[in-house]
Structure formats: structure tokens, C-alpha cells
């Protein structure tokens, strides 16, 4: 006992408590500072981008007063209009198809014992997440180039197919998570109370699953809206989306118009993500 009497070394004395502050196992020296800096670094560039989208001048660095001219210019730009509509149309179609397919797949692959082929279905559904986008993009370029020549068909269908494919795993995740936390006895209880299979699904399963489905849809929508790489390689001439249009613009002189479009995209994304949080947590 005598040996462990009092902290003798300076090292162990330091462990007692940092001077002037109450002991707390949860604080580590310097960590909070780094973290605050990290948040500043994360948000500062975005804020600067947003601020300069309201710049009256043509430069990106010198503030010349508040103006909405770049928003007006972007809104009047027919290319931007087309790209914006195309982006929304693409994200809407891909997210819708992906959510329906993902919901069915999630219902099929959860809440069951292992069945033949389940691992394969899992692997396939998650496959788009595991391959770098650029690899999928060039693979699609190869195949779709061939199909386009063979069929002479050049519509948005290729983009919709490609987007749907990589949206499926994102839609699948929250739906599956929701299903797995759902109490299976509720459905059993409903069938015990004379609900047919169809009634069990429409009255119990679907309403309880809805937050997951909406969250999955939001996620798929955002992912599709944000995609650059696959769109860049799959699109035919005149099928620019907002991100690929901006990527093209970056090669030329950059004006605050890009900032204005970016700000709108940021805003749309932030709203969707907030909604996603709302729905994925929304139990009550």
C-alpha cells in the first residue's frame, strides 16, 4: 500500500486534473480547438462562395456591393434553364424508379432467415457503392455507345437507367434500416385480427415503413442531383445537367454566375438533407 500512496512522478501528477478546470474524462487537450477549426474550414469556403454569388461586380474576390444580377443572368440563360429542368427530371425519374425497386427489394431481403441467393442479392444491390464512379462511368460509356449506335436511340433513357442503378443502394439503405427496426409482431397481430395479406401491407407495413421510404427517396434524389462523373460520360450532346454544365463552364472564364447556380444547388441539397434527417428520425 505504501508504494501507491501519492503520485510521485510529474506525469502522474498531471493526470490529476488540468489546472483551473474540473476534471472531465471526455475532454482531451486541443481537440475542441481542432474541431472548431474543422467546422470553420468546412463552412468558410461555402459561405464565401454564397456571399460572392451576390456580388455586383464581375470578379470573384472583390466585393462591389449587393446584387442579384448573377441570379438573373443564370435564370435568363437558356442553357442553364434546360440543364436545371433536365437535372430535376432526371433526379425525379431516377429517384422514383429506384425507390420503388429498392422498397420491393428491401421487403424481400429483410426479416427472413438466410435463403438461397440472398447474399447475391445483397451484393448486387450494393455493387454500385463498391466500384469507383469513374470505372462505372467508362463501363457505361462503352456499353451505351454500342447500344446508341445499334438502336439509333438517343433519349434520356440512358441517363435515367444509369442514375437509377446507382440510386438504388442509397434508397435501399434507410428503407432496410427502417424495416429491420420494425416490430414484426405488428403484422402478425394484424393477420390475427383478420387482416388479409393485402390489408396487412396497406394498413400496417406501408404506413410504418413510410418514413423510411421518404428518406430513401430524398437520398436518391440528392445523389442523382449531385452526380457529375457518370452523367458526364453517359450524356449525349445537348443532355447537360446542372453539374455537367458547370463543369464545362469551369474551363472558361469563371463568373459569379457559377456561384449563383452553386448557391441554388446548395440550398436545394440542404433542404433535402434536412428533410431526410426529419423523416429518418421521425418516429412520432
Amino acid at each position, binding site marked *: 500500500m505504501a508504494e501507491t500512496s501519492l503520485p510521485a512522478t510529474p506525469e502522474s501528477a498531471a493526470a490529476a486534473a488540468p489546472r483551473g478546470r474540473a476534471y472531465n*474524462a471526455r475532454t482531451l487537450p486541443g481537440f475542441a480547438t481542432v474541431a472548431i477549426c474543422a467546422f470553420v474550414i468546412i463552412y468558410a469556403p461555402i459561405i464565401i462562395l454564397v456571399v460572392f454569388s451576390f456580388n455586383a461586380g464581375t470578379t*470573384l474576390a472583390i466585393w462591389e456591393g449587393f446584387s442579384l444580377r448573377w441570379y438573373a443572368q443564370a435564370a435568363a440563360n437558356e442553357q442553364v434553364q434546360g440543364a436545371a429542368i433536365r437535372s430535376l427530371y432526371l433526379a425525379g425519374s431516377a429517384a422514383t424508379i429506384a425507390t420503388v425497386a429498392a422498397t420491393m427489394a428491401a421487403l424481400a*431481403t429483410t426479416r427472413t432467415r438466410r435463403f438461397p441467393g440472398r447474399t447475391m442479392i445483397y451484393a448486387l444491390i450494393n455493387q454500385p457503392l463498391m466500384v*469507383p464512379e469513374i470505372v462505372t462511368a467508362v463501363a457505361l460509356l462503352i*456499353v451505351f455507345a454500342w447500344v446508341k449506335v445499334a438502336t439509333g436511340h438517343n433519349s434520356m433513357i440512358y441517363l435515367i437507367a444509369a442514375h437509377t442503378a446507382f440510386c438504388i443502394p442509397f434508397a435501399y439503405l434507410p428503407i432496410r434500416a427502417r424495416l429491420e427496426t420494425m416490430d414484426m409482431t405488428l403484422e402478425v397481430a394484424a393477420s390475427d385480427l383478420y387482416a388479409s395479406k393485402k390489408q396487412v401491407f396497406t394498413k400496417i407495413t406501408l404506413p410504418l415503413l413510410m418514413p423510411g421510404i421518404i428518406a430513401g427517396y430524398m437520398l436518391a434524389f440528392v445523389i442523382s442531383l449531385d452526380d457529375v462523373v457518370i452523367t458526364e460520360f453517359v450524356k449525349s450532346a445537348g443532355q447537360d445537367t446542372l*453539374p455537367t454544365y458547370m463543369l464545362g463552364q469551369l474551363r472558361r472564364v469563371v463568373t459569379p454566375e457559377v456561384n449563383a447556380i452553386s448557391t441554388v444547388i446548395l440550398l436545394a441539397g440542404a433542404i433535402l*438533407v434536412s428533410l431526410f*434527417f426529419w423523416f429518418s428520425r421521425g418516429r412520432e
Partner: protein
Amino acid sequence: MSDATASPTAPGELEAEALRQDHRTRWLMSLPAIAIILCAAAGPLMVMVVYSFLAPGDYGNVKWEFSTEGWVSVLLQRDIFDGTLAWADAHLSIFWRSLSLSLITTVVTLLIGVPTAWFIATRPDGKREFWLFLITVPFWTNLLVRTIAIQELIRAEGVINLILLKIGLIQEPIQMMFTNFAIGFGMSYVYLPLMVLPVYAAVEKLDFRLVEAAHDLYASRWKAFRLIILPLIKPGVIAGSILVFIPSLGAYVTPRVLGGGKNLMFGNLIELQFGQGRNWPLGAALSLTLMVAVMIALIFYVRATSRETHNG
């Protein structure tokens, strides 16, 4: 009694039929998702394997004859005159840039991400969600937009140079765009949330009484961190590192915008073969090489995360 027990159902018949029916339904319901992914993701990857063994066409695309030249060209180049093979230095330097910048990005995000994750996880219950939300929002915001934001920051006429010039620290703007630094900085910026989230999950599960126990047994803060905290959150740290490393290795947008035409990374080299390079088989072979590299990293990821669930 025995007449009645001449059982109306053969042994196990009901169960077996129900099970068969169940599996059939489950497969049918998975079919749309599987079909779409096979057509527009997994299938094309298979086709690409075939293309990597064909000869390049004169104006892009391929000629339908067997050739291993695409795979050979990944690492080697053939002399135009005597046909001898030598190391493809251009490719090797691009591979090296990809690998080193990915590793640097991983280390940078690690150094910033671990304290950030710790900070979020140790907030009081009500406030934690707010900080978590703050780190998640950029994760879901457009990657291109975030890259553009970095570009604005580090351009010759960008905010950083402007400030440095104003305070007289420099006379000439520093050329930061189109350098390896720009790529590393940009990737660290865009992939930071990928590090924070898994580390956060690990720290959140940490039993802080263990840290108190370490301090009780005379460990300094640093020693408690190194000997107790770090080993316990290691699976999360490994998971985060691999989650940052994988997209860095396959990055395309960030190096294209911030690296320019000279500082190519793996992804841009692949693109080149389908653009100016007009060597689709090489592009296919390069793509498959990148895919294999990512798969190897993924195996490590799966191992790290499964160990996490075993320990947890």
C-alpha cells in the same frame, strides 16, 4: 382416435410449401432492382473486361480482335521503332501521385477528423445532434460545388491570396491552383466527413469509465489516449481511413478541377483513354486495375468493421 389422426397433412408439407412460396416471392420482388443494376452497373463492368482484351480502334472504340496490349500498356510502353518494352514512366508517376495524394489525404483527414469526431461525440445529449448535422450536411452537398468553393479560395485572385497580399505577407499571388497541393487540399476538404462519421460512431460507443479508470491508475491524458482510447476506437479509425482512401484513389472531379491538365490522377488517366488517348482497351484495363485496388481496400474495410461488431 387413430382414424382422425390419419393426418390430413403429410409431415412438413405445409412448411415446405410455404417456404418455397416465400423464396419465390422474395426473388420476384428483388428482380426489378437486380435487373436495373445488372443493365446499368454490374453488366457493363463485365463488358469492360471483354473490351480490355481487344485492340484499340483508330478513332476510339475497339477493333474486334484479341489483344493483351491494353493490359501490357498499363505498366509498360512499347517503343514505336523497335517494339521493345520499357516502363511507362508517365503512368507510373500518375499512379504514384494517386497513391501518395490519397495517403496524404487520409492522414490529413485523420488528424483533423479524430478530434472533430471526439468533439461531437462528447457534446451533451441535446446538442450532439446539431453538430452531427453540421458535419453531415456537407457530406450530402454537391461535390462539384464544394470543389468550386475551394477553387475560389485558392485561385491566384482568390480570397487567400487577396488577404495575404493585403497584409503584405506576399508581393505576388502564390500559384496554388493546378498543383498537387490543390488536389490534396481539395480532397481532404471534400472527404473529411467520411472520416468523421465512422470515428464518431466508435467514440460514441466508448465507455468513458475506462478513461476514468486509466486516470485513476495514474495515466496521463496522452497515455490514456494512446493506451486506452485509441485501441478502443481503432476499428472506427480504420474504417474512416479506408472510406477516405477509396474515393481519393478513384477521384475524378476534384483533380480535374483543381489539378488541371498536368496533374493527373488515376481517374483522369482513365478518362484520357476515352478522350484524346483513344485507347479504349487501355482505359478498360486501367479501370479494372483501379477496381481491383479499391476491392482490396474494401476487404480491409469489411475486416475492420466486422471486428468492430465482434468487439462491440
